[in-house]
């Protein structure tokens, strides 16, 4: 089918006593948008920096399009990076920044200019050529950084939390634009973020990192609907875990289980579940109005807590708000519960 753009095997990197990346294997397909997702210090950025060549692995290999580049310096690798702080050259104009990579590779001047202008156009910055980076807004700088990387037509584009410094509105807009640009140019994107929403919206596949290792790798839907460990369940989406005791009481089975908050219905008083449903009794401890939806935090009578999210699609928001302290039954389809580990201390 499609070929492998990046093949990573047994990657390991330590900083002093700290193991930043440990035994990581990834295959990134050609044209894929892969997100490395994880909390800070989970090793996702280090993996990206090793693909770019800024860090050298202690062990393992990195192949780009079948060529082993583990020992190659950054300038010899056909990848380009968009940095978290953009790293635009302050003494150069926008167009000089974009042309830099082509100039270093001795592309003739006419072609260089034409490609740079086209790249600026593709990130909707035509007319900004003569500006300095200091005269641009954060979002514009971000686009220059993107154009500077894309103009080289690399095999792989690496993005290190490129949207982290933007405000929410701009970030959501750039998420859509990035995805569009990726579809247009068809380049493989490896994207690092700690923002689960960003990862879920943009990616073809997500690799969730925890403590230097890949906790789970899969499509956004797989990761969200079938989290493979309590860590993944908690990091992607709301951690909604039924503890060992609660699971035994409610489901009649051991292990730690997870139900996503939007899959749960709230019913007043005690309600018998339908045959395909599971139910648990509890008392509403907190009601939070978040505009589009309302969040309930429910203390379970069998121990533990569950979060429930209901859309405010009807006029019942005021009514919902008054439900604090009431006894309720939580109901969900048994299809929507997933075992995330076989024992409560497992990963």
């Amino acid at each position, binding site marked *: 089918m499609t070929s492998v753009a990046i093949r990573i095997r047994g990657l390991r990197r330590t900083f002093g006593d700290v193991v930043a990346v440990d035994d990581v294997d990834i295959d990134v397909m050609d044209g894929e948008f892969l997100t490395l997702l994880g909390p800070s210090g989970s090793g996702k950025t280090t993996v990206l920096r090793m693909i770019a060549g800024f860090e050298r692995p202690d062990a393992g290999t990195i192949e780009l399009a079948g060529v082993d580049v583990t020992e190659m310096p950054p*300038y010899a690798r056909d990848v*380009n990076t968009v940095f978290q702080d953009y790293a635009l050259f302050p003494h150069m104009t926008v167009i000089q920044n974009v042309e*830099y990579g082509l100039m270093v590779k001795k592309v003739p001047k006419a072609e260089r200019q034409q490609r740079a202008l086209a790249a600026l156009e593709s990130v909707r910055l035509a007319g900004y050529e003569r500006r300095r980076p200091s005269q641009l807004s954060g979002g514009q700088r971000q686009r220059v950084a993107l154009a500077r990387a894309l103009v080289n037509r690399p095999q792989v584009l690496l993005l290190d939390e490129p949207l982290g410094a933007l405000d929410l509105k701009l970030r959501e807009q750039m998420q859509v634009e990035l995805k569009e640009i990726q579809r247009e140019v068809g380049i493989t994107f490896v994207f690092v973020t700690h923002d689960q929403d960003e990862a879920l919206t943009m990616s073809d596949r997500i690799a969730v990192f925890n403590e230097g290792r890949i906790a789970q790798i899969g499509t956004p839907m797989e990761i969200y609907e079938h989290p493979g460990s309590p860590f993944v369940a908690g990091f992607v989406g709301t951690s909604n875990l039924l503890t060992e005791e609660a699971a035994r009481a409610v489901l009649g089975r051991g292990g730690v289980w997870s139900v996503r908050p939007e899959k749960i219905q709230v019913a007043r008083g005690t309600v018998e579940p339908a045959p395909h449903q599971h139910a648990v009794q509890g008392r509403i401890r907190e009601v939070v109005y978040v505009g589009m939806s309302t969040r309930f935090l429910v203390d379970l009578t069998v121990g533990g807590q569950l979060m429930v999210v209901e859309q405010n699609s009807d006029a019942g928001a005021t009514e919902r708000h008054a439900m604090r302290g009431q006894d309720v039954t939580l109901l969900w389809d048994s299809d929507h519960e997933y075992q995330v580990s076989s024992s409560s201390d497992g990963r």
Partner: protein
Amino acid sequence: MTTTTATHRGFWYRHPKLQLAGLLSAPMAWLVVVYLGSLLALFLTAFWQVNDFTSQVERTFTFRNFQEVFTNPAYYGTVFRTVSIALLTTLICIVIAVPLAFFMARVVRPRYQAVMIAMILTPLWASYLVKVYAWRAMLQPESGVIAWFLQPFGIGGPGYGFIGIVITLSYLWLPYMVLPIYTAFSRLPNSMLDASADLGARNGRTFRSVVFPIVFPSIVAGSIFTFSLSLGDYITAQIVGGKLLMLGNVVQQTYVTNLPFAAAVSMIPVVIVLAYLFAVRRSGALDNL
């Protein structure tokens, strides 16, 4: 009582410009009257002359002093020598300071960084005269440390003179060159170097196209110090210069007998430094001071 206080505060709050004027008028007056005023007096004096018989200063306008400086080889030779010394000193400071500052800012571990900065700064605490006399001792022909060190190679020491002055001045002003360049290197983000390599540039190319242009304004800023301090110096020339004179020495020798001439001579470094500042204005170095 409280009402009056409130009104009083309100007055300054409503007149921020008056408040600023109150803060700045005293220092501004000092700067204009004492500093610029004396410079203006110097400028005017340069166009007066001394009566050869009475030795009194005559306040009549003349270019005679400047004519003398630029026609008498002894004087324009001194101008040329002084500028050469200042340029050479600046060049040596740059050659030493750039790698040193790079090493301090980007190679050494943070713990030793502080130690190195302290080592660069502590000589500034020692008296100027002590340091110059130390160099006089070291530069001494035959018996000085440098002559003794060079003897096995069959070379004599530089002794007192042009080279002695340049070495001593370079030593004196080096910290003023190291500090701004060090600051520039430590401000340079790592990602900038990564980005250049990422775009295909080898280390040499990165240094030429990224590091040097970013650090250049601070080199110019440092050179303003080393150049102007060297241009105005006369004690070093007196102590390690042998018979050589710099412009400052000419001023020192003539200001008692011929004040207008001394004023004319001291205008020369002022004009040269102003021209230098004008030339480097566009490099952005003046934003870096």
